[in-house]
């Protein structure tokens, strides 16, 4: 299950209500959605409400996901942004008589929104890598394991882990550059060929 792409997982959710696939999608995106909630809404309880809302929407709307129109990470980001907008509006309605201590960013706009979008893009790119490449990057970045610990954890020689880490970063870079080109054809730089 951990080796499947996001698009395969959401199709399993849509076709058979596959709980394991849903659990795996939560593992990949739950933290990002919660992080987006904290940045947009500034409240731990509302951030948890956002996670609940987003995964409820994913569960109920999985059949409506069309991979020919957008990647899963893009769709997931859109669902998160829309739900955050909804919660932000309700939060303002509830607390409008109280002056906020600091302004919060509008979901979908500004540097914070860009940063959050990039987080979703990265997780989407990880999903598109080979299982071996995804594993080594997830263990290094999201699991916080050293190269030696990854070697032990995966029963792989340390030298192989090191070269695989490089190859995985190279593959991730290629996917990120491809995505950037798809988003903006003018973004092609001289080093991108």
């Amino acid at each position, binding site marked *: 299950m951990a080796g499947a792409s996001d698009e395969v997982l959401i199709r399993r959710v849509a076709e*058979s*209500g*596959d*709980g*394991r696939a*849903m*659990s795996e999608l*939560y*593992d990949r*995106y*739950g*933290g*990002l*959605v*919660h*992080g987006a909630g*904290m940045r947009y809404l500034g409240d731990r309880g509302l951030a*948890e409400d956002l*996670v*609940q809302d987003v*995964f*409820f*929407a994913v*569960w*109920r*709307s999985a059949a*409506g996901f069309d991979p020919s*129109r957008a990647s899963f990470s893009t769709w997931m980001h*859109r669902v998160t942004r*829309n739900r955050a*907008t*909804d919660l932000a*509006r309700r939060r*303002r309605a509830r607390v409008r008589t109280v002056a906020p201590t600091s302004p919060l960013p*509008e979901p979908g*706009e500004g540097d914070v929104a860009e*940063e*959050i979008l*990039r*987080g979703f893009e*990265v*997780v989407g790119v990880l999903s598109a890598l080979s299982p071996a490449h995804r594993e080594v*990057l997830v263990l*290094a*970045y*999201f699991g916080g394991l*050293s*190269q030696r610990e990854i070697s032990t954890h995966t029963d792989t020689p340390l030298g192989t882990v*090191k*070269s*695989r*880490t*490089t*190859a995985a*970063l*190279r593959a*991730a*870079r290629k996917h*990120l550059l491809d995505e950037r080109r798809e988003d903006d054809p003018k973004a092609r730089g001289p*080093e991108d060929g």
Partner: protein
Amino acid sequence: MGRRDHGADHRQTRELLGPYVLGALEPGEEREVERHLEACAGCRKEERGLRETHERLAGAAVAGAAAPPHLKDRVLAALPPQEGQALPVGESERTRLLRLVAPVAAALLVAVALAAYYGGIFGPAETAALKPTGLAPGAGGEVEIERAPAATEAELEVWGLPQTGPNEYYELWFGREEGRVSAGTFTVDDEGHGRLSTACPKVAAGDYHRVGVTLERFPEEPRRDAAKVVLGGELQGS
């Protein structure tokens, strides 16, 4: 340094650039890589590219590291079971147990739902086809609502709606003679398509049969007497 030595260094450095940008090399290896980088423009360029990717991965890891551990079980346990389908799997024993008994639970849920339906606990689903107003010609939508005292839910799908501008959003309303209640807000994608799944407990008890979608703009408060209705319809029992 001879050509052969440079070639061996070059190959080795290119293999180690990943853990190098992660700061995960042994001190001796790191010094070797840095020595080669000083002399090799190609590897320096490769290192810059990998470092940029490393920074994006590290940023995503930080952004995604904040979810409290208990939240996964809570979120997955709250998802409504679907007929004949297993519940999502959390990490706790309780959730694992739920998964193991899911087929039995699903069958029981179907039986309970059928009994409840025929026993009159839940009302039948009602649907409304939403027609466009002059503000959104060509748009359309459907809404389905299932009334129950504890869990009235509405499912809305719209298409062909104009994209919202900054601070604009669409709002779903259920109406009756005495007034209307909001059932949630949403925006649409680049093609004017949008979905909303929402709980609307106030609708359960009232005789709300009209459905409308309005275009709203923050920070203005929605006003019934100045509503920009883009879609409307009447709920019909199924």
